């Protein structure tokens, strides 16, 4: 497709990226002992919706798979941290040099206390909480992602927990990390995740009487068509997309 060959690096993106990383490869789905969950599916080759796909790949259906669980040894200090957290963690994912601990919400408070207080961990700094809505991740649609840093050890980890859409409750981290206060309010505001035990879980960015939670995937972007020089430009979420 390109007119001249990529001059430089060997790791030029040759294929659709979903097939690139070994841990993303579909064959991992069948591997025993490794839990790989599809969080959605991608149809067609180019992701075009609403118009005919004449490429012949219109019927292609590929699962959207996030990086899968890592196997021991993780290497370096990852093992030190993982050893401490082992009984509380569902899954450890290492991707691009960042470690993510997936913790069930029932164990979250215990895990976070340990993460903050254990002398070998000492993640005393909570960067924030972020919600991610995976409508295709059945039973775990709403994820809350915590980024933690240890200034003592100069380390960073990510803790991820989830709640189903039908029961969007996650324990609040405010008693452990007061910094989580506004971040949890924002996540409630944007995703409808309820942080049990938060001192005042109210909307923070949207008006108090706002209906719905705007960052959820089922919440429309909104927008109106714009007429420009006789042509009409549809709003961004209704334009042709390739996702």
């Amino acid at each position, binding site marked *: 497709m390109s007119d001249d060959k990529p001059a430089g*690096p060997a790791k*030029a*993106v040759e294929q659709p990226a979903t097939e690139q990383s070994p841990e993303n490869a579909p064959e991992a789905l069948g591997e025993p002992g490794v839990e790989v969950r599809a969080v959605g599916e991608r149809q067609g080759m180019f*992701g075009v919706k609403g118009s005919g796909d004449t490429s012949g790949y219109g019927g292609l259906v590929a699962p959207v798979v996030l990086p899968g669980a890592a196997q021991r040894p993780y290497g370096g200090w990852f093992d030190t941290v993982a050893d401490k957290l082992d009984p509380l963690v569902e899954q450890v994912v290492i991707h691009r040099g*960042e470690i993510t601990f997936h913790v069930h919400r029932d164990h979250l408070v215990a895990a976070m206390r340990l993460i903050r207080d254990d002398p070998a961990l000492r993640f005393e700094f909570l*960067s924030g909480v972020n919600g991610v809505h995976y409508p295709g991740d059945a039973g775990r649609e709403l994820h809350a992602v915590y980024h933690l840093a240890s200034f003592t050890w100069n380390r960073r980890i990510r803790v991820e927990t989830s709640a189903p859409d039908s029961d969007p409750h996650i324990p609040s981290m405010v008693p452990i990390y007061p910094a989580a206060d506004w971040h949890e309010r924002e996540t409630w505001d944007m995703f409808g995740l309820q942080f049990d035990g938060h001192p005042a879980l109210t909307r923070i*960015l949207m008006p108090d009487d706002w209906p719905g939670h705007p960052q959820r995937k089922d919440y429309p972007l909104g927008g109106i068509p714009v007429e420009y020089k006789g042509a009409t430009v549809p709003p961004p979420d209704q334009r042709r997309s*390739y996702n």
Partner: protein
Amino acid sequence: MSTDFYADPADTSDGKVFTVSGQDWGDIASGLGEGDAAERVVVNMGPQHPSTHGVLRLILEIEGETVTEARCGIGYLHTGIEKNMEYRTWTQGVTFCTRMDYLSPFYNEMTYVLGVERLLDIEDDIPEKAQVMRVLLMELNRISSHLVCIATGGMEIGALTVMTIGFRERELVLDLFELITGLRMNHAFIRPGGVAQDMPPGALDQIRDFVALMKKRLPEYAALCNANPIFKARLENVGHLDLEGCMALGLTGPVLRSTGYGFDLRKAQPYCGYETYDFDVQTWDTADSYGRFRVRLNEMWESLRIIEQAADRLAKLEGAPVMVADKKVAWPSQLSIGSDGMGNSLDHIRHIMGESMEALIHHFKLVTEGFRVPAGQAYVPVESPRGELGAHVVSDGGTRPFRAHFRDPSFNNLQAMGVMSEGGQIADVIVAIASIDPVMGGVDR
């Protein structure tokens, strides 16, 4: 209760409501009567108060001039940038996030781009010149941002000269931004894979002139403020927050460093090659607004040091690439200066329109469809002028961000407003907030 044409009484049944429209203090004092209400006065300051740094609303419970409880109301500048980014390509995302914290646009771009580059696994492939230019622009940006902080902070306590000279120098930085990126603000210059274009001719000379000028001008701030008794009286021991408070509330940046703890992401977890630059982390040990002012002032000197080193490196990198070599990621279009200002490079247009059909298809595919980013998530924080700024970038393998969330330092640091100002005077609330240096565009996003 007065009937005011402009301000209808609020629709509340909870307690007495007074609409204050001026010259009616007597009515209000007599209306309060006896009991709890007489002692409890809740005042809204903002969201359009000139000294609350943009559209920040403060809800203050006061007893005379003393603040007993302070809360923030935010969200007045919420623009849904994060949601909008989910409907644009990865490259277009830069155009959106640069508008968040409008005083430090390069940092917004940088943390997002670092996240995207990590997911693409091209972190090691970014050309050296692009990294040096990023560092140069970020440090120039640190100076312009700190200048606004000091300038507006000075204005709010009545030091108008600090404001006028602060904005005078900031204008010089914005001129450099305009020269290098084409825009004074909202640059969208740092792109996944590198930067949008090369240094323009003559830019290095102007940067060196600027550094030389700043070395003369920065001592003016010190002479004007550092030992100024009025300035010190307003700032010293105001907005106190010690290290424990900072850690609990997640404060970073000058507020954290004013407690004497020298945490700086540029040193602790370097990115863009910061480990190869010679600079010191500036701290102060008073944990108050004055300390934060001094930290910012000293940091501008350190930024000048880094800018000088970056300029020297750029002088040796003339003609080097500023975009990753991988053509499946690198933005195909190039900009150039024409007779009517900056626009698309005519050479590139000629190439795709007249010479190579494949180049046209390549350009079209990359610009309309964009590139795909492997599924996963990344968080690469940078040390913005206000502290740890990080973008949590989530991809589902598509051509658009599945989710991009910005951990803005202003948003987090504003949480400390209550602790910093409760028990103090109303006038000190303004000083405390100015020392946090919140930018509402970043807080509300």
